[in-house]
């Protein structure tokens, strides 16, 4: 710890803007997990940096006619209209077409496409239709990845968002707001709560600086408190019925995870690596600044190897937020049901472009962050998209999906990857898992991995 702090100080003194990227950390603490872990997850080249996975969600579908990508001259991806902001980084991204989220369809459950699109986006599961009693979805792909990759970092995963779920009223057609407000699910009934405030995200990643002094004493106290809590929870659980035990199971899982993190922190192998960027002050006033900051938090998390798995919800599905920055004063959801109205369709296009601009900025920053021989982006796979294609139709085929990064080198970028219609989105998830070194035979409604290499 002392060692690292002094290194950091030195680096700062030399005017290095960002703190230790992961390789530096390994050098500073040769006994830490990452070195051993790389071989454990079977990365292609043992010396390579770890692969990071992120899933960025946007709600309400898009104006798919303006979602324009085609293979241009010399095989280069040509991006126009809504996707034009990505043109500057087109060599680093793939645009995917033909992907479907079958489980977001009604399949007998009636209306509720918004809730189902977010609920199934990363789970590939049909969410149980309920406004609250007996919530049931499935484990999400990021949590599957976190179960393997998360053992190697301080945080198994991080869940971020730019909009809270509604504080009153109903969400979508008899579905609890838990479905439309979360994309990451720890288990079938436990959504992973997301952080909205960038300051809170920073603190979760890097700790509260004011508390560092008494850190060790605090850790040992926390450990003994959590031991107690675990015992209490088990004893309480034994008095509950089978369906109620889930609640306490969730609680125990969470407590255990925190205990493990404390254990690692106490072993000093795992001290947070503070970036030299200052902690954010809170939620900014404009949506663009807020989104940019949350993207920055994701970047910092990856760059410092605090975690290798992240999700970011740009808004909850069914979001009716307005975009005063770009002169859009109608609600997003309201506009998405444009019923063919040209003016509304145009506004949807501008909102889509706004989202793509934010994402493009993030991709550029990742590409500009050196890591090893290449960039942080080269070692990442960032999925960007949503679970509805056209917000007016509520259809779940031809989803708008972009994949950025080379996933450690194996993924060829700058392409339009056209799949046969009705190809499960989960097929792509399988391929991403594979690139991250934790392959799986199937997930959700997957049929076979999608060729992205």
């Amino acid at each position: 710890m002392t060692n690292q702090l002094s290194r950091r100080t030195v680096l700062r003194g030399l005017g290095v803007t960002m703190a230790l990227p992961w390789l530096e950390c390994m050098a500073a603490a040769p006994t830490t997990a990452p070195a051993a872990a790389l071989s454990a997850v079977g990365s292609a080249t043992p010396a390579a940096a770890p692969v990071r996975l992120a899933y960025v969600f946007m709600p309400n579908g898009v104006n798919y006619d303006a979602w324009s990508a085609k293979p241009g001259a010399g095989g280069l991806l040509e991006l126009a209209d809504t996707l034009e902001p990505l043109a500057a980084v087109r060599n680093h991204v793939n645009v995917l077409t033909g992907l479907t989220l079958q489980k977001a369809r009604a399949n007998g459950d009636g209306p509720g496409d918004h809730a189902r699109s977010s609920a199934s986006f990363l789970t590939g599961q049909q969410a149980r239709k309920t406004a609250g009693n007996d919530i049931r979805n499935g484990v999400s792909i990021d949590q599957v990845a976190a179960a393997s990759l998360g053992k190697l970092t301080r945080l198994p995963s991080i869940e971020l968002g730019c909009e809270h779920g509604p504080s009153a009223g109903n969400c979508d057609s008899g579905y609890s707001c838990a479905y439309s407000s979360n994309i990451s699910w720890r288990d079938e009934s436990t959504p992973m709560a997301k952080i909205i405030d960038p300051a809170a995200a920073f603190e979760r990643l890097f700790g509260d600086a004011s508390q560092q002094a008494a850190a060790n004493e605090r850790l040992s106290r926390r450990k003994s408190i959590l031991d107690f809590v675990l015992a209490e929870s088990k004893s309480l659980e034994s008095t509950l019925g089978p369906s109620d035990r889930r609640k306490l199971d969730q609680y125990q899982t969470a407590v255990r995870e925190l205990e493990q993190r404390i254990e690692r922190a106490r072993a000093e192998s795992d001290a947070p690596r503070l970036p030299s960027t200052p902690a954010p002050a809170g939620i900014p006033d404009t949506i663009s600044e807020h989104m940019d900051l949350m993207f920055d938090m994701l970047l910092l998390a990856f760059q410092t190897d605090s975690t290798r798995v992240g999700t970011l919800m740009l808004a909850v599905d069914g979001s009716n937020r307005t975009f005063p920055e770009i002169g859009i004063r109608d609600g997003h959801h309201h506009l998405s049901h444009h019923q063919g109205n040209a003016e509304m369709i145009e506004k949807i296009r501008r909102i889509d472009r706004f989202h793509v601009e934010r994402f493009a900025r993030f991709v550029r920053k990742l590409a500009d962050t050196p890591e090893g021989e290449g960039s942080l982006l080269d070692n990442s796979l960032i999925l960007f998209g949503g679970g509805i294609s056209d917000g007016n139709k509520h259809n779940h085929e031809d989803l708008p999906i972009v994949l950025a990064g080379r996933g450690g080198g194996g993924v060829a970028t700058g392409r339009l990857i056209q799949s046969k219609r009705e190809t499960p989105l989960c097929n792509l998830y399988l391929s991403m898992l594979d690139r991250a070194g934790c392959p799986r035979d199937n997930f959700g409604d997957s049929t076979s991995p999608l060729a992205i290499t």
Partner: protein
Amino acid sequence: MIASLILVSGLAGVSLGLGSRTALPGATRTVPGEPPSARDPQAEDLDRRFAAEFGGFLATHCLDCHSGDDAKGDLSLDHLRGVAHASEVNLRLVRDMIVSGEMPPKKKPRPDEHARTLAVQWLDAMIAYVPADAPIDPGWMTPHRLNRAEYRLTLRDLLGIDPARVDVAERLPRDDTGYGFDNIADVLSVSPLSVEEYLAAAERAVERALGPVVQVGDAPVSLRPIRGDNGQPLPRGGFFLFSNGAAKATFRTPVEAEYIIRVRAFETKAGDEHANLSLRVDGKSIGEARVDATRESPKEYTFRARLREGERSIAAHFTNDFYVKDKADRNMGVESITVAGPVDAASIVRPSAYSTIFGKATDASQDDERARTILRVFATRAYRRPAEERDLAGLMGVYAAEREAGRGFEEAVRAGLTAALVSPRFLFRTIRHPEPGNPSVRYTLDAYELASRLSYFLWSSMPDEALTRAAEDGSILTDDGLSAQVRRMLADPKADALVTHFAGQWLQLRSLDTLAIDRSAFPEYDDRLRDDMRREAERFFAHLLRGDRPVLDLIDSRYTFVNERLARHYGIPGVRGEEFRRVDLPADSARGGVLTMGAVLTITSNPTRTSPVKRGLFVLDQMLGTPPPPPPPDIPPLEQAANLGPNPTVREQLAAHTMVASCAACHNRLDPIGLSFEHFDAVGKWRQDESGRPIDASGVLPTGEPLTGAADLKRVVLARSDQFIETLTAKMLTYALGRGVEPFDRPAIRRIAARTRAEGDRLPALIESIVLSETFRTARGRERTK
């Protein structure tokens, strides 16, 4: 503990089921056993929907094969005309066949997708239908995690942390909502992030409530640096004053208490008196001393002072400079300033929670015993029932681990308190059902469980002392004792929680904050007006609660609550100032009741214009409990269907719905209701015309009832007051139980509503009827769902 066990078993004999409860004193207060009225609006609704939404489908796609004696698959559907004979048909099979697409068979004409959806929806509703006179089923009680609001208010009552000053729940993740409320047990899950934040919040709360841990005693801290004016620094720190002036330093006290301040000083003597030292803290004089020590042997001059918490400026002033050129020069030197303390524990000003929790000090040999007592008392309050040996053993384990690690008594106890605040026994409300997995076993909540349930319903917080006493002596288990608590608690200011959390969610007042009204289109709408709107609705609901008013006032009333700004918005003359007050509305006023309040009219609008659809939905869903199904996706462009000109009014756009059959079924219900409010713009302001065209707020309901505006609509709702009160009952029961009401809750809802009607429709009577119901006081086991 033994006492509470006896209470449980003693009770089991008397209140299992309503019948045996007649033996109790006050039994006349229980809900009437008979069905309240022969009419069953839900059955009527199902019959109506059968005719409109399923009958045609059945005739077109099913009856060819499935009728008469030779019906295919031995499934005859020709008796199916609505609720009456529905139980004779295997509806689940019919539904599954339609959903899977097996029926109608491939070679027959395919049903339209929307018609198919409506058919399935009717079948689902019919399958879920429970007759209003079925026996009461109280349902289950899921372990209920405190939500953010409950956590905040519980820590207010447990530790005295004022939520207006410190939000201990700030970092807790937002709770997801279900059924329109954020206190639904099944939805309140726990993620790793929440546990982390609970732990951090508990640590902060204990520190906040008790103040910092301070060492009492006389260990001096030397203040550095010492700066001064009119002099020069001394070689080893300190300051030498040539003429009147001060040597100053700062000190940060951990708490307000008495401290000892020592100034080591000397003089250079001249004239006929010694140097005078005046000690000042933050400029205020504490005392004076005559400095008679020489530079060779300085002396310590001691002061005792009460110092407030925080950074203090401590200054030793030299006040009697004496100088005669070349003859005499009196000076003063300050070598050091030290502060020690707090000098004794008694002088420390502590937050009130400190003495509540720590009580009186004893000698150190009794530490462990004292810790045990402190933790027992605290756990009993925090866990909302007498702490048991097992609870205590765990907490003492945390305490002991801290002591072994060398921490002091107080720190170790604080660790125990923190642990209690992260214990699932604090964070969750549970019941001790003997067979929690068995739905056929009914359990009567014990006195403490009932007290908690009541307290979180009315106060969103833990029971207070009086309620805890009523649990201890068992009086809460009688109807009279329980009613008395309800009345007492509703009169308490803590019942404001019911206004902000129940009314705030039912009427969706909370959404006002995140609503993005286009302020360029509605310049009069600003944050202050928005807050006034919310306050009006809250004041109104609170008035029904405290003024014992009928709930029908929610639909229409001849009074409301406004301040000057809101009155101007409404066009009510003669109201001055920020203060809210009750005003009587003239007989012809368009206002009265919640539906024409600014808050509700604004919430049910789009950012740039009114939304009659949202307004219609609000009435049907929140007031009448019969929301239409959501619209199908891929709605055809309505303008084309209706051949609309440019810039159509909202009414013209909506009229297009009637051209499309799949829209008409629901919009015939929604649109006339919503349009009756068209005289109110998107921020609830009265208007005669919209962009130059006069407003037309008229319409006809599917029942044939004509409407000319909002006043007619209110009359229509009041004519369905049974239905409104049952709807409100269902909403409030959802909130009270923390679970969605299920079809099996219908009989209970009907009885609660009927009792409320018998008590003059008063809001407190509704609340009391819920609390006295079997559904609130008992629970059955819950089957494991697939």
